[in-house]
C-alpha cells in the first residue's frame, strides 16, 4: 500500500510518500516541491548585496544566513591574504543577535508547530495549546515577540536586518541599550522558568540525570506526559550520527559516529543532487522527486541541530536523556527546549562581558572589488543546525553562491545505499500521524530546505 500526505505548518509544505507493509512504513520519500532559486538570484550581484538577499532565504532564521554570508565574505579576505580585524565587541553583537533569533524560533516551534499536533493526539488534551486561542499559545506569542526586542535594539528590526557586515556590525549600542537587552533576556528567562520548565534556570542547567525530568513542571511537563503516552521516546531514531559545523555561540564543532566524538574536515562535506529536480523541465529523470538536495560528510548522512549540539558539546542532561531514550522524537524535542536554557545563559554572559569602548566596525583594508578571484566559506550554527555558505567572487561580483542548510542535512533524500536522516527515522512508523510527528521533530523548514 502507498499513501501520500501533504504536511503543512512546516514553514511551507512537504509531501510525504509512504510505502506500507503489514501496517508498518517500509519506505518513505519526503518531497519538497517549492523552489525559489536563491543561489541563482545571487549570481551577478555585488558581494555586499548578499547581506540583503540571503536573510530572505528564510523569514525565521534570516540572521543565521546573514552571519554565514558575513563569515564567507570575511573568509575571502583571509584566503586572499588580507588581514581583517573584527573586534570581540562586534563578534559578541553578532552572536547575541543570532542567539536571540534561535530562542524566539525554539519558542515558536514548541508552541506553534509541535505541541498543537502532540496535543491533538493526546487523551490529556489541553485547550491551553489550541492555536490562536489557548493561553499557552498566546503566552508564547508574547514571549517570542518580547525576546526579539533584545535584537532589534541594536540590529534595528527583526525580521530581515542586515546589521552584520564584513569588518563588524553597523550599530554602536549604548550602555543603556545593553541594559535593555539584558532586561529582555531576563524576561525570557522568567518565561522559561515560570511557563516552560517550572525550574529556576541555574537549577535547570545543573540537571545531569535522565531522572531530572521528574523535576520539570509546567508546559514541558505536559509535553513529557504526552510523549510517554504516545511513546515518542520509542520512535524517530535515525543513525545516531551527529554533526556540528561551527563553535560560535558557545557550541563545539565536531561529529559523533558510533558514539565517538571527533573533529572533521570541511573538504569532506559534499552535496548531491541525484534526486533533485533540474531547472529545465524537459530534462527531468524519473528518479528525481524533490527540490531538496542531500549532503553527506565522508559519504555518510549526519543529523544536525540542537540534539547534535548538545551531544557534541557534552551537555550532561541531554547526554543522559539520549543515553536512555536514544535519538528519539522525545530526545530531539527536549534537546531543542534545553538549548533555550543554554543559550539564555550564554547570552547573559555575552552581555555582561561585552566592552562597548571597542570599535563596532573596522573598515577592511581593501574593497572586495579589488580582489580579482575570491573564494570563501562561511559556516554557522543556525536554529535547525549546521549552515554553510560558499561564495566565489570575481572583482567583487558573485560568480557562484552555494547554500547548504541544516534542513538539507536532516531532510534531504537518501540514495540507493542509505536513507536520509529523516527518511530513516520515519521508516518503521505505524501510522501517518506517527510519521508526521517524527518528521516534525526535526523542526522542518520547507523554505530553507529548497531555498
Amino acid at each position, binding site marked *: 500500500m502507498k499513501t501520500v500526505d501533504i504536511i503543512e505548518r512546516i514553514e511551507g509544505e512537504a509531501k510525504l510518500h509512504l510505502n506500507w507493509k503489514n501496517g508498518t512504513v517500509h519506505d518513505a520519500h519526503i518531497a519538497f516541491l517549492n523552489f525559489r532559486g536563491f543561489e541563482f538570484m545571487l549570481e551577478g550581484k555585488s558581494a555586499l548585496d548578499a547581506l540583503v538577499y540571503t536573510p530572505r532565504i528564510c523569514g525565521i532564521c534570516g540572521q543565521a544566513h546573514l552571519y554565514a554570508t558575513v563569515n564567507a565574505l570575511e573568509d575571502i579576505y583571509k584566503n586572499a591574504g588580507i588581514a581583517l580585524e573584527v573586534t570581540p565587541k562586534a563578534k559578541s553583537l553578532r552572536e547575541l543577535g543570532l542567539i536571540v533569533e534561535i530562542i524566539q524560533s525554539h519558542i515558536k516551534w514548541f508552541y506553534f508547530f509541535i505541541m498543537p499536533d502532540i496535543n491533538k493526539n493526546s487523551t490529556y488534551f489541553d485547550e491551553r495549546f489550541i492555536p490562536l486561542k489557548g493561553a499557552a499559545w498566546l503566552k508564547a506569542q508574547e514571549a517570542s515577540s*518580547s525576546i526579539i*526586542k533584545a535584537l*532589534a535594539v541594536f540590529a534595528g528590526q527583526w525580521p530581515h536586518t542586515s546589521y552584520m557586515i564584513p569588518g563588524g556590525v553597523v550599530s554602536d549600542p549604548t550602555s543603556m541599550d545593553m541594559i535593555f537587552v539584558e532586561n529582555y533576556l531576563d524576561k525570557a528567562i522568567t518565561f522559561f522558568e515560570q511557563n516552560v520548565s517550572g525550574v529556576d534556570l541555574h537549577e535547570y542547567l545543573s540537571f545531569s540525570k535522565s531522572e531530572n525530568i521528574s523535576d520539570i513542571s509546567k508546559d514541558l511537563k505536559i509535553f513529557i506526559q504526552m510523549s510517554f503516552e504516545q511513546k515518542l521516546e520509542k520512535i524517530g531514531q535515525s543513525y545516531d550520527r551527529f554533526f556540528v559545523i561551527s563553535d560560535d555561540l558557545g557550541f563545539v564543532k565536531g561529529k559523533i559516529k558510533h558514539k565517538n566524538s571527533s573533529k572533521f574536515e570541511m573538504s569532506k562535506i559534499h552535496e548531491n543532487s541525484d534526486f533533485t529536480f533540474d531547472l529545465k523541465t524537459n530534462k527531468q529523470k524519473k528518479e528525481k522527486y524533490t527540490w531538496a538536495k542531500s549532503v553527506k560528510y565522508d559519504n555518510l548522512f549526519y543529523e544536525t541541530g540542537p540534539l547534535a549540539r548538545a551531544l557534541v558539546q557534552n551537555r550532561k542532561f541531554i547526554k543522559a536523556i539520549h543515553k536512555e531514550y536514544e535519538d528519539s522524537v522525545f530526545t530531539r524535542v527536549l534537546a531543542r527546549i534545553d538549548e533555550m536554557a543554554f543559550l539564555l545563559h550564554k547570552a547573559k554572559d555575552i552581555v555582561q562581558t561585552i566592552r562597548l*569602548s571597542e570599535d563596532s566596525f573596522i573598515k577592511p583594508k581593501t574593497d572586495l572589488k579589488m580582489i580579482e578571484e575570491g573564494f570563501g566559506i562561511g559556516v554557522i550554527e543556525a536554529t535547525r543546525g549546521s549552515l554553510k555558505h560558499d561564495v566565489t567572487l570575481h572583482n567583487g561580483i558573485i560568480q557562484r553562491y552555494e547554500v547548504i542548510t541544516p534542513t538539507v542535512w536532516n531532510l534531504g533524500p537518501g540514495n540507493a545505499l542509505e536513507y536520509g536522516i529523516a527518511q530513516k527515522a520515519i521508516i518503521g512508523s505505524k501510522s501517518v500521524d506517527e510519521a508526521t510527528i517524527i518528521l516534525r521533530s526535526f523542526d522542518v523548514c520547507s523554505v530553507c530546505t529548497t531555498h
Partner: protein
Amino acid sequence: MRSKPTLVWLQALTCNGNTQSLLSSNHTRFEQFLLAFDIIYHPSLTNTITLKEVVSSNSEIDFLLVEGAITSQTHFFSLSDMSVKTILQTLAQRASYIISVGSCAVFGGIHAKFEQNNDIQGVEKSLEHITPKSNHKIIHLTGCPVHPEWILQTLFTLKAKGVIQLDLHNRPVELYSHLAHHGCTRNEYFEWKVEAHDFGLKEGCLFYDQGCRGPMTHSSCNKILWNDVSSKTRVGMPCIGCTEFDFPRDNLFETKKNIGIPAEVPLGISKRAYLSITGVAKTFKIERLNKKIIDENS
C-alpha cells in the same frame, strides 16, 4: 461586514518573513487582532483545516491576505497539488477584500529576481482582472517585510470603515506618505550635511556614502518603530528602499555619486535646491555634530 470578519492568509513564493513579522507584533495588539478577526486559515498557525479544504470550500472570505510572489509554473512551485496562481484565483473570487502583504506579493520583490522561472509576478497582475467582491482596489502593503502594525492598522481601518484611502500605487496613504527619513534620529546630520565616516557609528548620516534610501523611500519605519524599539537607520543600517517598486536595487551599501555628489537627491527636491543648501551647510563646521555623542570611556 460580520462582527468578526473572516480572514484567510495565503503563502506563495515567500520566505514567510511577513508571517514572522506579524507574529512579532506587540502582544496587546496581537490579542486585539485575534479578538477582532476570525482567522480561518493561516498555513503556519491554524491546524483545523487544510489548504485543499480552504480552496474547495465555498465559504466567503472577508479578507484574503497574500504573502509572497505568484507563479503558474508548477515545476518550480506547487502547493497541495495546485499552482499558486490557481489557488490565488480561486480564493480571490470569494474574497471581499484582497491585501497583498509585502513587496513580493505586491510586485514580485526579491523572488522575481529568480529569472530562470519566467513567470513570477505580484498578486494584482496574477489575478488577471478578477476583482474583490467589495470592488475595493487590491491593497498594496509594500515592504520586505511589512511592519506588523501596517497590517493591523489596514485591517482595523477596513473593518471599521469599509474603505481605506490609497496612494497612486494603491498603498494606504497614511502608512506610505511619510519617508523612511522622517523621524530618523540621524536627521540633524542630514540637515547639516555631516556624513557618517563609516559603519558602526552613532554619529552621521548614511545618505552620503552608505547608500541610505531614507529620503527617497515611502514608509513609516521611523514613525512606527520596529519591534516597538528602533529602526534600521537609527541603529546605523542604511535604508535599502524595500517599500519601493525597484527593490532590490543593486549595490545597496553604497551611494552612487557623480563627481562626489549623490546621483539621486531627496524626493521632490530639485538638484539645484539640494546643491545650494548643501553648499551653504558645508561652509559651517559645527563642532557638536563632528564629535562623539557619547564618550564610552569617560
